[in-house]
């Protein structure tokens, strides 16, 4: 379900929105973290420079700290709560300097961040990921030509932050030279670490012998994404102007996933994907206030991620010399995963040696691919308000993507079900995507206060697909095979098992929206509208007659909006949408959907602003076999008060409620002696007639109630001192069916608290001293489950000096 937009909720901690520095695997993480924290950037020379800077900074801080009352907390991570920035209260803007015809302002802030973490460092890295070490926290350079006669540029703006080890770094550049060019560029580097250990965890039971809990998420990742965007406009004010652009997006780093071949093997893949995007465009000012444009795009994607076995849960084979195999992620010998303990043995692994050689297991696995996707796109567009009463914005684009990759796969081990000791997979995969897009918007001003807004969107695409693969399987001379059997040199099926795929699907989606907006006074306005949508989908499974899935869906939406400003201090906005669909393409698509949005601000005094918002999304499908009901409701209150120059405060509260309920058919046989109420109360008649493999039917429910509160107080205890203290808490309480007695609620029931305090002192002579302190505490309310505890609390202290002129 798509949630309504919510400002306050965006401040809440979202498990996926944090990132972390590089770590090759859980075992190496501490070392990697230490290395990261000591490095300003890659390369020994830069590290030495950083260390020297840090020493100088630290000496300066100690010398100045006698003037401070308490510490303050900056953070360069995405602010989940009231976080104190080292630049929260900089000294008064200096006058800058004039050199070479430019008025120049510049600042740089250097500091040191120190952290201590108690509890799960993996969870800390997943949510926070601020590490210890010296930092270039912020840097800004502004140059403005005094007489607009600069040699290379008239205006230059350069800003960067987070360098030296923070997980998110960026640099932005803007430059322009009057009528000649306009340049914008940015570079972003985001390190993302994820180890929420319940995700994809097999929850290995303690009754297994051996009992091996999975302590990290099998889908852990530790990747770095580097994104570069550069756009140059030449002759921006001319009749004909040109645009050039380039974007580069590269993601690298270790990550883990899994593969099912007999049992669940753990895979390590060194992530390596790159897309280079090139843009060229030309604008023709064909008439006053009318621009016709042509753009050519080329996206070139390279997917070079390879997969190899991560030998988890290894055991020796009873051979001389002893080889070893990986038993994979799931270890549950009671349920014969990957196999049972043999009669007479105490465990599947005794003294490190495997006691059952009929187990499915991995000796090696390798899969290589080289995905190459080329996507050229052409677009023509027009924007005009040549006629005073009519504004037009429209475009048409055509795109044709071509993708291909070879397959190179090999496995050694044992697939006990098929008596396969080895296999190789080869072949070629190829697919295309051809699409057309029409995007039109026109606004007709019927009178000064009445306007008609027409929007039309058309998107048609088709994706033909071709796969041509062959698998060679190798068995033993006399099945059943064991891990000790020798694989034959000739494949089980001479020539292998080919598989050829030729399929395609396409969709045409048309939407038209008409709105009439009437500002009937300076204090209020209203709009009403109607949106009509039409989807046509075809899926050609194998191009045989009669084997085509076809779907046609219609959408009809009523639109209404109201704005009012009854008094100068009060603003009100309200919108609603009611949609009916005549059919659904997937089971959880709604037949009825309603959206309500309300926002208000009230500023009776110049020093006080109050705000409120309500966002409600409701979706349902009353079909007797689905009974889908979902909503996302969000209610927010904010207050910003600054009654005195030396004192102010911000308050925010937000409540978010999510439910998603639907009937499901499933299959669940709890272990002997385990009672799961959701399974016990499921109806075993309704599904059985249609889906014999999943005979249980029940109303699956998901509820999530999230409360978020935040308060910060700003005060100025002395002329040159500014301080903030704050606190935020996110409290989540939810419920879901329990399919497995070992399954905790995890992130559906937790509290995340983040006190913060900071201090900024204007030292004088263009120097400012900043200190910041953040505290993070994450704790779940449910039981931990058979994995590593996720609780942590941490202090993060940053001190910095800022020099500006």
């Amino acid at each position: 379900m798509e949630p309504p937009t919510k400002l306050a909720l965006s401040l809440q901690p979202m498990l996926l929105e944090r990132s972390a520095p590089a770590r090759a695997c859980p075992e190496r993480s501490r070392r990697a973290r230490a290395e990261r924290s000591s490095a300003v950037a890659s390369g020994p020379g830069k590290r030495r420079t950083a260390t020297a800077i840090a020493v100088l900074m630290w000496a300066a801080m100690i010398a100045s700290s006698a003037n401070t009352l308490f510490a303050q907390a900056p953070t360069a991570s995405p602010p989940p709560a009231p976080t104190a920035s080292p630049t929260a209260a900089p000294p008064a803007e200096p006058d800058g300097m004039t050199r070479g015809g430019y008025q120049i302002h510049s600042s740089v802030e250097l500091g040191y961040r120190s952290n201590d973490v108690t509890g799960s460092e993996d969870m800390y890295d997943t949510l926070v990921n601020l590490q210890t070490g010296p930092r270039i926290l912020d840097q800004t350079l502004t140059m403005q030509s005094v007489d607009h006669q600069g040699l290379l540029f008239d205006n230059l703006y350069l800003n960067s932050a987070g360098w030296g080890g923070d997980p998110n770094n960026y640099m932005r550049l803007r430059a322009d030279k009057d009528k000649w060019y306009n340049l914008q560029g940015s570079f972003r580097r985001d390190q993302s670490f994820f180890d929420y250990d319940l995700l994809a965890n097999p929850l290995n039971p303690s009754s297994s012998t051996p009992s091996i809990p999975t302590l990290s998420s099998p889908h852990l990742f530790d990747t770095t994404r580097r994104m570069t965007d550069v756009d140059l406009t030449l002759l921006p004010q001319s009749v004909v102007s040109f645009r050039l652009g380039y974007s580069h997006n590269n993601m690298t780093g270790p990550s883990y996933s899994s593969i099912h071949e007999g049992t669940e093997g753990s895979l390590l893949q060194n992530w390596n994907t790159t897309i280079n995007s090139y843009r060229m465009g030309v604008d023709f000012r064909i008439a006053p206030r009318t621009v016709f444009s042509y753009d050519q795009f080329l996206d070139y994607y390279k997917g070079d991620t390879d997969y190899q076995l991560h030998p988890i849960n290894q055991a020796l084979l009873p051979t001389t010399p002893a080889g070893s195999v990986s038993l994979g992620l799931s270890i549950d010998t009671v349920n014969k995963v990957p196999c049972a303990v043999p009669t007479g043995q105490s465990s599947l692994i005794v003294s490190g040696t495997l006691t059952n050689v009929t187990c499915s297991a991995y000796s090696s696995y390798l899969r290589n691919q080289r995905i190459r996707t080329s996507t050229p796109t052409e677009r023509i567009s027009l924007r005009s308000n040549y006629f005073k009463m009519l504004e037009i914005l429209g475009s048409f684009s055509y795109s044709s993507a071509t993708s291909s990759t070879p397959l190179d796969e090999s496995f050694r081990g044992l697939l006990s079900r098929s008596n396969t000791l080895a296999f190789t997979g080869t072949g070629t995969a190829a697919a295309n995507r051809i699409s057309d897009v029409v995007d039109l918007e026109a606004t007709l001003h019927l009178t000064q206060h009445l306007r008609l807004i027409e929007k039309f969107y058309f998107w048609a695409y088709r994706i033909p697909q071709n796969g041509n693969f062959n698998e060679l399987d190798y068995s033993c001379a006399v099945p059943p095979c064991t891990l000790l059997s020798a694989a034959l040199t000739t494949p089980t099926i001479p020539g292998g098992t080919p598989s050829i795929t030729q399929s395609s699907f396409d969709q045409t989606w048309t939407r038209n929206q008409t709105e009439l907006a009437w500002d009937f006074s300076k204090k209020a306005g209203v709009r009403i509208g109607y949106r009509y949508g039409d989807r046509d989908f075809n899926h050609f499974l194998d191009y045989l007659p009669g084997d085509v899935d076809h779907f046609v869906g219609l959408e009809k939406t009523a639109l209404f909006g109201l704005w009012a400003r009854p008094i100068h201090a009060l603003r009100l906005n309200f919108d609603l949408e009611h949609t009916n669909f005549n059919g659904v393409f997937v089971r959880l698509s709604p037949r009825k959907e309603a959206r309500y949005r309300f926002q208000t601000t009230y500023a009776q005094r110049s020093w006080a602003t109050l705000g409120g918002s309500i966002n409600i999304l409701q979706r349902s499908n009353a079909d007797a076999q689905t009974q889908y009901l979902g909503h996302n409701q969000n209610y927010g209150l904010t207050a910003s008060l600054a009654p005195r120059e030396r004192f102010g405060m911000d308050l925010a509260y937000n409540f978010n409620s999510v439910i998603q309920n639907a009937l499901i058919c499933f299959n669940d046989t709890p272990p002997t002696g385990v009672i799961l109420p959701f399974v016990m109360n499921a109806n075993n008649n309704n599904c059985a007639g249609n889906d014999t493999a999943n005979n249980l039917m029940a109303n699956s429910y998901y509820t999530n109630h999230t409360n978020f509160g935040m308060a910060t107080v700003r005060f100025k205890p002395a002329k040159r001192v500014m301080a903030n203290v704050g606190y935020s808490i996110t409290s989540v309480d939810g419920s879901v069916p329990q399919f497995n007695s070992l399954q905790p609620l995890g992130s559906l029931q937790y509290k995340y608290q983040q006190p913060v305090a900071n201090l900024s002192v204007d030292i004088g002579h263009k120097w400012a001293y900043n200190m910041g302190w953040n505290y993070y505490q994450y704790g779940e309310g449910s039981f931990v489950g058979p994995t590593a505890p996720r609780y942590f609390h941490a202090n993060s202290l940053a001190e910095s000096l800022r020099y500006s002129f």
Partner: protein
Amino acid sequence: MQCNDCHNPHGTGTVRQLRTMPSGDAICYKCHVDKQGPFVYEHVPVKTEGCTSCHSPHGSTNPRLLNVMPVNMLCLQCHTFSTQLTAGGPSGPAHNQSAKYQACTMCHTQIHGSNFSTVFFK
């Protein structure tokens, strides 16, 4: 991220002024480039219904911004027999949910689309 990374305040015919790639695909693919495909075996609703069928782009308390946890329930809510789906409904998995299948994606790892596996194993 900022609002205008995904929404275009200056006008477009898309609902809620969502930006799109020049090809018309979801703007999510600008960063998540490996999910765009095209794939030989597409998980069709990813393309037809969009990323928001399973993810909450504005934020979620669930890992990977999933709409629902645990993962198997999110999958089962669509992968359950239904007679009302004119385009043919997906088959339900015949797995014992009490065992190791809390996350269907432990085996179906390439759930956004695969070039080599009809069931998104690789």
